[in-house]
């Protein structure tokens, strides 16, 4: 046995190929390559450590402490977790609202984004103007857009209800009515589907034209062309829109908070105590609770529990969607 035999591990289990020690030159080369790889990855690694790993670790740690942001944290075990899951009524409201927004607002945004994208692709004249007009609302700052919607939908003075009055349609309270506040927020979200429209236009123009021609020759109608040509081609984009939509909805904060403040008339000025979720908790979401507990009540432990819960739900929803991707993919995918 030559040199190779000397490098063979004597403890190699039977039935497995013996590990072979690389020559010193090769090992040095591998080390250099490894170091270079790490060096190239270092911006991401540093970012991951600073902006993800450390905050995640700190959040887990603080969730087991009593920490008011002023005094050092004190270990309290599972107290914060028990409080949130056993004695914290806003959690149920926030979860129900978030679920509603995910189940209604996300699909509506995807449907409208796709619909507007399909119209934009098919338009022969005025397509640029149409695309611009549909995209513009997306550029409106969320706070300004929300204030605008609260004004438009004001049940006493808003033009929408005045038109409804003229048409003898029963008025609704919109942002002042717990039954209508979430639908009003969904309308606001659908109004700003410019981002999804652009993505869907890109996906739709990517569908090979010859497939449509072949389908037409085979006698396929509009629905069949959509079902068997368009849909298989754009499903990855639909999946992308759903996943990012779910994650964005989990973080839903600004619009709900602004709408609540403007519609209630209590803007949280010095001396005023504003309760998020107006009216009657119907627009309360988990991120609002995180802020409320963390930076109004200064109960960092509870805020961290809520953050971890939010993280867990977002991850679970993402994993489920990714696992169900088969429903969005064709056989050859």
């Amino acid at each position, binding site marked *: 046995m030559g040199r190779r035999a000397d490098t063979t591990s004597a403890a190699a289990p039977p039935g497995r190929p013996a590990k072979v020690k690389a020559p010193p030159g090769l090992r040095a080369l591998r080390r250099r390559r490894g170091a270079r790889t790490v060096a190239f990855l270092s911006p991401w690694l540093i970012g991951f450590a600073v902006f993800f790993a450390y905050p995640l670790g700190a959040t887990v740690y603080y969730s087991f402490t009593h920490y008011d942001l002023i005094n050092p944290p004190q270990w309290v075990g599972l107290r914060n977790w028990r409080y949130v899951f056993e004695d914290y009524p806003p959690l149920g409201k926030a979860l129900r609202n978030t679920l509603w927004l995910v189940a209604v607002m996300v699909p509506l945004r995807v449907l409208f984004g796709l619909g507007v994208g399909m119209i934009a692709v098919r338009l022969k004249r005025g397509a640029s103007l149409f695309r611009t007009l549909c995209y513009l609302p997306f550029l409106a700052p969320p706070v300004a857009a929300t204030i605008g919607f609260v004004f438009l939908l004001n049940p006493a003075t808003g033009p929408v209800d005045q038109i409804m009055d003229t048409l003898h349609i029963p008025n609704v309270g919109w942002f002042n009515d717990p039954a209508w506040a979430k639908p009003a927020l969904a309308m606001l979200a659908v109004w700003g589907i410019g981002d999804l429209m652009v993505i869907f236009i890109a996906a739709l123009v990517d569908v090979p034209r010859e497939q449509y021609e072949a389908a037409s020759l085979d006698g396929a109608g509009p629905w069949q062309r959509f079902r068997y040509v368009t849909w298989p081609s754009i499903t990855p984009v639909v999946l*992308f829109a759903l996943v990012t939509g779910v994650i964005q909805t989990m973080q839903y904060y600004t619009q709900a908070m602004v709408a609540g403040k403007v519609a209630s008339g209590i803007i949280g000025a010095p001396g005023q105590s504003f309760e998020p979720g107006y009216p009657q908790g119907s627009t309360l979401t988990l991120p609002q609770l995180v802020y409320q507990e963390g930076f109004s009540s200064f109960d960092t432990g*509870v805020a961290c529990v809520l953050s971890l819960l939010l993280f867990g739900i977002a991850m679970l929803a993402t994993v489920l969607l990714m696992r169900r991707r088969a429903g969005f993919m064709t056989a050859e995918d």
Partner: protein
Amino acid sequence: MHRPRFRRLTASIAVAATAALLATSCAGGSGGGTGADEDINKKVTIKFWHGWSQESEVKAINDLIAKFNTTHPNIKVEATPNVNDDKLTQGVRSSKGPDVVSSFTTDNVGQFCSSGGWVDLAPFVTKSGLDPAKTFPKATLDYTQFQGKRCALPFLADAYGLYYNKDMFTAAGITSPPKTMSEFKADAVKLQQLNADGSIKVAGVMPTFHGYEFTPAHVLAQWGPTYVGADGKSNLASTPQAAQMLTYQKELVEALGGFEKLEKFRAGFGEEFSAQNPFQAGQVAMQLDGEWRTASIAEDSPTLNYGTAPLPVPDDQADSYGRGYLTGTVIGIAKSSHHQAAAWEFIKFLTTDTDAVNSFAATIHNVPTTFAALDSTPLAGDEHFKPFLEVFKNPASNSTPASLNGGKYQVTFQEFCYAWEAGRVPDLKSGLAGVDKQIDTDTAQAKP
């Protein structure tokens, strides 16, 4: 699109976005803590965070600072306006936070004191020879300390009372402001004006709990609540006041057209702190409000013919007429301060200098908070302001007690009141018992 790469991309976006949800990472800040023995003749700059925001108020604060500098030229004061309590506490934990802090929310004094975010003023008070009991009225001393620790001093106060439109009173044949709750309801009904379609044109009063200052705490003060029993537990259900107030409020709402009709009318109100305030705009005939409204009316609605009076009291407590809800601005030294002695000099000037207190109170129309200033305030000659001075001096006037977790108990009670007025509480007694249980649970959670 390449599917595996697409999936990796989507998964990466998912992880990155969910990571953003965790941006609540925290690191403790270090405080200053120079103490009462620091040399006050040192040249320093101190930061003063306060909540006043209107142009006239900010100017009044700056005038006070200029006056302070005539006697303390070595202490430069940098004032930051429009700071609410959230921002304030976030600043206090920073090593570069404010030195002098003030808040309009006396409910939060318990949190400020117990957390140590606002330092104990006892060493400063002792060193300067100030006798709080001889300087400030008892009510203000009560809401500026928590469990024996004085971490704040009163810097002007607010008293709540009734504003009424005299022209509307005359038109409705009402000759004097109501003194009892039954008179209040009868007058409100008489003052209400409807449009041809039955909607409200002018409300007698806006009695829903989002009706600006018509909050549960402000209204309940007329019944003389205690909120906390001798055992330290919430007693909203075991004492009669809260149930009586809520029952009365529901009757008042029904008498004025019902919750939905009133809420629809309220949705058309202008901003509270503007000339579009519903009382100033003639949308309501009566309004529960603080004394500061007199300044806004003088500035924005000088032709409004109105009067002021104490808010009515329950019929069975008629002898307590004259009481009202009290609160005020509290001021203290932040833990973050690196110049606590200089900060104290500024606070002492703002809170005890009679000229300073009176000039600022007269400018922003707040109630002065020292005995000396109360005796000499020019506001006593203002017919609109005088009733608020009387409410402030009334021994039956009251405030909401300080608690370990600030105003959280008020928010819990307030949310219950919103549910109640919307008809979502089937049983008032058991509902209030649930509120008590929640408040006690939240208080226990706030303990270290």
